């Protein structure tokens, strides 16, 4: 009676050993990673770019033989800009799918899942959220500059070169919106500007007329939009409808298809992160998804590629095993990655620096006036 189970056990052990002995086999299990993105809600336009970028990267990686011979599989989750949804998605990815890595996006959702990531040693990479609070967090890497860099550039440009010094602010009442507004106050003030008033609005609101009317009554020569996604175009249209004629400004967050189409947003002063709409990538994206690519498509393509390179390294170093800790160590040791938008070097604060362009929104495009080079 006793011999049969023990031999079975032995067999199972042997079988287990053989599978672990050849981890690099092409027929091995796919490597699963997560991607927690704004697939619905006011930021759904970013979601199209982010998901498309990650999908294209996964296809390219798999077409080139996968990661150490294993196929890459991305599991997409929707956070709809809601931190609690992001937490549920992250729990599912960690507990059910057992991913060692996930792409993430937006500031509030990313800050909400970071403790889960750190606790479970799962690396998360954010290519979209820009709150300053995203820096210096364990297991969180940002392949995008934090917003203070961009806000600093635009605040100085507006005050010093455009001579707009009395600003009123309309602010999305979330981590990203508030953080960007606070930074704007600080940098605009340092450049000689003054913030006259600030109104906070819900990110998913659709009627901003009361707040805009209040800002209009305060005067000022500049309306700074510290918000993002679909509501930027609604704010711009409703502001013009209310007879607000002063210039509007915002960071690269405002550059979504809705804003490009909005009549009210014409002439908006913006920052832009490097993205070439005529690149081979942008053309391929347009063919595949029937919509123009944007900066964030490149960002999530790059983030997925950075993961692939780090994972390859981690698998090599750890005798075939792929863990979050291994990925983290690989990112720390490689540091500089080649991406579609040039060399990306992770800083000590787990963030990236990039060139920042400033310009005017015109006919659905940004007419760049000036490029501020990233500090080395």
């Amino acid at each position, binding site marked *: 009676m006793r011999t049969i189970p023990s031999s079975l056990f032995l067999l199972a052990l042997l079988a287990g050993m053989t599978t672990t002995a050849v981890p690099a086999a092409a027929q091995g299990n796919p490597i699963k990673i997560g991607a927690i993105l704004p697939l619905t809600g006011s930021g759904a336009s970013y979601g199209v770019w982010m998901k498309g970028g990650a999908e294209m990267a996964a296809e390219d990686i798999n077409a080139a033989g996968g990661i150490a011979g294993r196929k890459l599989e991305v599991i997409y989750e929707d956070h709809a800009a809601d931190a609690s949804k992001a937490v549920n998605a992250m729990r599912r990815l960690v507990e059910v799918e057992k991913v060692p890595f996930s792409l993430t996006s937006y500031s509030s959702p990313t800050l909400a899942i970071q403790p889960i990531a750190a606790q479970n040693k799962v690396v998360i990479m954010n290519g979209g959220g820009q709150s300053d609070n995203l820096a210096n967090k364990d297991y969180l890497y940002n392949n995008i500059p934090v917003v203070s860099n961009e806000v600093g550039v635009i605040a100085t440009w507006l005050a010093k070169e455009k001579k707009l010094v009395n600003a009123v602010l309309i602010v999305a009442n979330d981590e990203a919106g508030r953080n960007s507004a606070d930074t704007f106050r600080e940098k605009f003030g340092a450049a000689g500007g003054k913030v006259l008033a600030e109104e906070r*609005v819900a990110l998913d609101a659709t*009627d901003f007329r*009361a707040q805009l009317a209040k800002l209009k009554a305060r005067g000022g020569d500049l309306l700074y939009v510290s918000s993002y996604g679909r509501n930027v175009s609604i704010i711009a249209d409703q502001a013009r*409808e209310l007879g607000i004629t002063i210039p509007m400004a915002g960071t690269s967050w405002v550059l979504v298809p809705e804003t490009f189409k909005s009549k009210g947003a014409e002439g908006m002063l913006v920052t832009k992160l490097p993205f070439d709409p005529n690149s081979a990538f942008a053309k391929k994206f347009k063919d595949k998804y029937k919509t123009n690519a944007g900066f964030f498509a490149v960002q999530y393509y790059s983030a997925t590629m950075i993961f692939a390179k780090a994972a390859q390294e981690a698998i090599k170093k750890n005798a075939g095993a792929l863990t979050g800790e291994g990925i983290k160590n690989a990112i720390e040791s490689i540091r500089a990655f080649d991406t579609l938008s040039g060399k990306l070097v992770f800083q000590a604060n787990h963030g990236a620096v990039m060139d920042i362009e400033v310009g005017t929104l015109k006919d659905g495009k940004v007419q760049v006036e000036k490029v501020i080079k990233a500090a080395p």
Partner: protein
Amino acid sequence: MDLFLQLAATGLVVGSLYVLCALGWGLIYGTTLHFHVAHGAVFTLAAYYAYAAQKFLGLPLAIAVIGAIVAAALSGMLIDLLIYQPLERRGAIRTTLFIASLGLLTLIENLLAIIFAPDPLRMDVGWLAEAVQLGPVFLTRLHLLSVATAILGFLALMAFLKYSLWGQAIRAVSSSPEMARTVGIDLRRVHLLTYAVGSAISAPAGILLAMDVGVEPYRGTTFVLLASVAVIMGGIGSIPGALLGALFLALLENLGVWKIASEWQSSISFGAFLIFIVVRPRGLFGRKIQSAEI
């Protein structure tokens, strides 16, 4: 002063949508005593009907809107016919009807989210979206249309209730169902009619919202909540009460922003409601609310 006028005008525009929603809900509640929260779903459905008729069937705007109002009226009638009436025949209490209504609201909202995605749909209104300036106040043509629709809706409803035979039957049931039954009024048919009229009068609110800022599947919940607050404030069973309650809420929300930080906007109306319900439970014009009626 300019700011006050602008906020008052914006409040009036938002208020006209609240008014239409509250008139319909108030008529239904005052007559049937069903706490019909699924009215929110009818409101949203009307917007989606109009959107679909314009976008997928390619109908001209005016035809799409009329079609959507008729479809919304039928939807309201179907809810009464298929859900409330069978429940009432089996002797269900009001709380059961309320829970059923809440379930239906959630179901329809989620179905819309699955079919159309949870993002707002905005109808194409062409020249109606153009801005007009009235002294220091800036509005769009659509906003003026909203206000006109609310005024017309109110007057039409008052005239219908006062002068038409069916309207008088509704009033009879509203003031005393037992008495109405004694004189030979068929309660079930009056209820059906009430659902048709109540749904048709609120449908333009959903459609106008879809034309202005867009409608997403869950928008009806907010509106039906505000409508019920407006009706209770105005006095249950009173049509002018519903109008005043709805206008009061909208003006309070918008003028409140003047002095209070705008992130408190939606808290203002419910705060006022709490004070109101404690101080004057019978509302402005209505009968006293019995706890059993809610």
